[in-house]
Every structure is written in structure tokens, then in C-alpha cells.
């Protein structure tokens, strides 16, 4: 059984297709990441699934309730938690008053436990809350009635890294407890740690739905490597290098060398390499071992890069070398 099904969902805002024939399913018990750059149409899908707006075409179900069937949706929502992007609360109410209102309508069996975990100043009025505190209050209300399915739009936006960590652990625990989680994000690195599967949307269209492992393997890392040597593209002989850019930057090295006190301030050529890397790290380290490495940055590939690399307009990934 599916917790959420979306079939052929289309939303037309005065000629702009925010969602164009979007279809996917979220299975019970999985953590599903809905991924896409800002403005791709994630929130449109989420708000349609929650029944806040009706689709131009297509339909969706939430815990088997058709989004057009209000009584069924009301019944389903007893088992659904929801966290909007930038959750809004009455500025003049205290966190306590808001949670009390929510509790009176859906229950709050887990309120105390969640408040311990997310540490919200509930006695204070919302006006005095920071963005992160509002986000945490939103998380508490989304989970406090122990729902089977939780839908979250950009849940980690506004959380500091420590809280983000705690949130990730929390989501993993919830999944172990059998919950279904559907969350959106525009940061791949954020969802990779908690999601089983991801659906990627771009310009209102579903690009792919796949396991997070497969996607990560394909998306690779963004690498920036500076070496004290004159290198040309031909000399980069590592498997799994894509979108390679090679640039000579000699004067910078002179400064670096003086600063490092090496005394050897000859203006030897420095090469900066940037590329997306999908190979294994041992080969990369072996390759770099032959040179004097000045800088090595390895980052999660930005989502846009993933798109360009694998789904982009005709841009075939440039694989360098091959006979290493």
C-alpha cells in the first residue's frame, strides 16, 4: 500500500506549469526525499497532496484518501503530520497556546518527548521566536500526535547544524518505528543521509525517482585540486572525472610558498583542477600523490550540477583518460 500516490498531477498558474504531469508513489514505511532546485514545483505538489489547492489535471491520494474527497481527507489527516516551508504561527500567541489548540484537535501523546528533543521556548510569544525556533515548534506540532505519515516541506531550513544532526537522527528513529516520511529539499547532501529514495523534479517535471545510493553514486563529488605542477587535460588520467576544467595560476603559488615559509619562492606553475568525481577515492589519492598538493576540496555535488551532468540539455559527461 502507498502512503502517497501522485498521478499525472498538473498545476497551471496562469500559463506557468508549476507541475507538469507529475507521478510518483511513496511507499509505507519509507523516507522519501522530494528533491529539486528552488522554484521547481516541490511546494506545489506538496500543497496539492495536502488538499490546500486543487490540481488543474491529475489527482493524488493521501493515506488512500482522494484529495478531492474532503471528509476522507479530514479522517486521513488525523494520521498525518505536516510541516510547511516557513511555518507561520499567530505572532501574539505563545508556543504553548498553539500546541494546546493543535492538541485539542489531533492529540499530543508525544508532546513532552518532542519538546525535550527540540527545545522550544513554549512560554514565549511567537513574536520573539527566531526562524529556527519556529521551525522547531513546527516539527513538534507535526509529530506530537504520533502520525503514521509526516509530510515536510524543507524541514531543515533554518536549523543550525547541530539541530540538523539531531533532526536526521530523529527521522531515522521514526523510520525504524515504522513511520512514513515525505520531505522536500533543494540540498542533496541534506537528504542523502536520511532518505531511502528520492524523486527529482525540475521545471515542474519529474526527472527521476531512484534509490538514494544509486543517485549518489552517479552524482559524485565536486573536487577542487591545486597542485604545484604544469598539467594539461591529457595528463588527468583518473577514471570517473567529469566536467574537468584545468587552469594555470602561477602567481598565486608564489604567495602561498612565501606564506608557508618554504623559502623556495620560484614561480613554478600551479594548476587548479575542478571536476565532478564519481570514481573511488583511492585512485584520486594515488593520482594526487605524484604531485605537491596545495589544496584539495571535496564537496557534495551541487544539485544543479547533478542535473546538468545527468539530465542536462545534450551535455554529455566528459570522461577523461580511461587507461589509468
Amino acid at each position: 500500500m502507498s502512503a502517497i500516490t501522485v498521478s499525472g498531477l498538473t498545476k497551471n498558474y496562469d500559463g506557468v506549469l508549476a507541475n507538469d504531469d507529475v507521478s510518483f508513489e511513496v511507499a509505507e514505511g519509507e523516507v522519501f526525499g522530494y528533491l529539486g532546485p528552488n522554484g521547481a514545483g516541490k511546494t506545489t505538489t506538496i500543497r496539492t497532496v495536502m488538499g490546500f489547492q486543487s490540481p488543474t489535471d491529475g489527482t493524488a491520494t493521501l493515506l488512500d484518501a482522494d484529495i478531492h474527497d474532503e471528509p476522507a481527507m479530514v479522517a486521513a489527516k488525523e494520521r498525518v503530520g505536516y510541516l510547511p516551508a516557513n511555518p507561520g504561527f499567530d505572532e501574539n500567541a505563545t508556543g504553548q497556546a498553539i500546541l494546546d489548540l493543535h492538541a485539542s484537535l489531533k492529540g499530543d501523546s508525544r508532546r513532552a518527548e518532542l519538546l525535550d528533543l527540540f527545545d522550544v521556548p513554549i512560554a514565549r510569544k511567537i513574536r520573539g521566536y527566531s526562524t529556527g525556533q519556529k521551525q522547531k515548534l513546527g516539527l513538534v506540532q507535526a509529530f506530537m500526535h504520533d502520525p503514521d505519515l509526516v509530510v515536510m516541506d524543507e524541514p531543515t531550513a533554518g536549523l543550525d547544524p547541530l539541530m540538523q544532526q539531531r533532526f536526521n537522527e530523529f527521522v531515522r528513529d521514526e523510520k525504524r518505528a515504522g513511520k512514513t516520511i515525505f520531505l522536500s529539499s533543494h540540498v542533496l547532501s541534506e537528504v542523502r543521509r536520511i532518505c531511502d529514495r528520492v524523486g527529482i523534479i525540475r521545471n515542474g517535471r519529474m526527472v527521476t525517482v531512484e534509490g538514494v545510493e544509486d543517485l549518489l553514486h552517479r552524482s559524485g563529488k565536486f573536487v577542487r585540486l591545486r597542485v604545484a605542477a604544469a598539467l594539461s587535460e591529457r595528463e588527468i588520467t583518473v577514471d570517473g572525472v567529469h566536467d574537468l576544467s584545468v587552469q594555470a595560476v602561477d602567481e598565486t603559488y608564489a604567495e602561498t610558498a612565501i606564506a608557508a615559509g618554504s623559502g623556495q619562492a620560484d614561480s613554478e606553475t600551479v594548476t587548479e583542477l575542478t571536476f565532478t568525481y564519481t570514481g573511488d577515492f583511492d585512485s584520486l589519492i594515488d593520482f594526487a600523490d605524484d604531485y605537491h598538493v596545495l589544496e584539495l576540496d571535496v564537496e557534495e555535488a551541487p544539485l544543479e550540477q547533478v542535473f546538468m551532468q545527468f539530465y542536462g540539455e545534450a551535455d554529455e559527461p566528459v570522461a577523461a583518460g580511461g587507461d589509468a
Partner: protein
Amino acid sequence: MFEFSRYYGRRRVKGSAALTAGLAILTGLYIYLFPSISSSIDLDAYIQSMPPALRAAFGIQSLNSIEGFLAAELYAFGWVLLLGLYLAYAAASLVADDVEDGRMDMLLALPVSRSKILLEKFSSLLVPIAVANVVLPVFVYFGVVAIGETLSVADLVMVHLLSVPYLLTTAAIGLVASVLFDRTSLAQRAAMGTVFGLFLVDSVVTNTDFAVLGALSPTRYYDPAAVLVESQWDVTGAFLLLLAALALLLLSRTLFQRKDIA
């Protein structure tokens, strides 16, 4: 049941108390001034010189009696206009404000129908209506007694009781505006503009061939001067207002149920 009514109703207590206090001060001032005004000027001669439309607009029948004075100064102004506009204004924010500030998603995610959200939010406006209409007549009565005048208690009760359907109607006009517009300021302007516009229409067309147009205005069905000065209780008018309020409520409910929350 009534979780939203309780929540939003409680949040209106302070504002309602302030509103009522303001109206009480206005009332106190009028009552305090009445003896000196009525003894120094012949107000009835003065109002005869006013244009009939103006007299009709503020229900001015006689200013020399305390009843006529209060009907014109306090009720026609304080109740029909001020309170009527206030309720239209307050109702106009009920939905639009939550939509504009992104709070509506949070409410709609709760296991409740849209109808419940809308109607219970609207019901929170019963707090200012009730507080003003319970406190003010007591205040008026003792104020009038204090300056050595008398006033029919039954008429005083009725002028407040009959104002309730009127105020519900102006609030319902505000609610329709609130559902129609996603921006609070727009909804508020539309609501207050409609209520004030209808008041003007009713006033201007009196004694003209277009008097029938005034039938569209809620002000046509609530006449404080008739109640206080002539003891004429327009119960039929009150029922018509209740029906109109109900129709507007149902209209806004249908609109809200079909609305795409932006």
C-alpha cells in the same frame, strides 16, 4: 467541538474590552454634555435646518429628548457606523490574514473541515458583539439616571438586541471579502467600503425615487431612533438581517471550500 471558537474567541477578549471601554467613554461624554446642550440650544430648531438626507442618515428625529439625542449621537454613529465598520474590518482579516501570512496551511493540515475553520473563526466575533452589547446598555442606563433623565429599559434592551443581526450582517460582508481576497488590506478595504457605501446609498436615496435601492443596505433594517424615540421594534427587519447574514455565511463557506489557498 468549538476548539477554534474558544481559541480565537479568547484572543478577542482584550480587544473587545478596549473597544467597549472606548465606546463607554464616548457614551459618557454624550450623556454628560446632554443637559447643558439641551438647555442652551433648541436642537430641534437646529435640525429642522439640516438637509433631510443628513437627518435620515443619522436617524435624527429629535435631539431635545435624551432618547433622540442618544439615538442620533451614540447609536447612529457609534453602533451603526463605528461598530458596523469595525466588525466588517475584523471579519475581513479572518481568512485573508492567515492566508497572507502563511498560517492557513497549518490550520488546513489539521483533521478539520474547511467549513469548521471558517464558521468557528467567524463565531469568535460574537465576543466583541456580546461584550459591547451587554456592558454598554448598563452603562447608558446608569448614565441617564445619573443626569436625572429617564429612559425606557425595554427600548434600551431592544436597541441593543436588534443591533446584533445588523452587526452579524456587516461581519458576514467582511467574511465574504476575506475569502475573496488573499491580501488582508484589500479584503479590509473592500469590506469597509461596501458597508460604508451601502450606508451612504441608504442615506442619499431617502425621499427620492430611488429609495428602493436603500433596501439593499443593512442600515435600512436597523433604526435605533425608531426604537428609542417611538418604541418601534423592527423585528421583521432583524429577521431579514439574520437571513442575509446566514446567506452571506453560506456563500463565503462555499467560496472557501472551493478556494485554492495561495
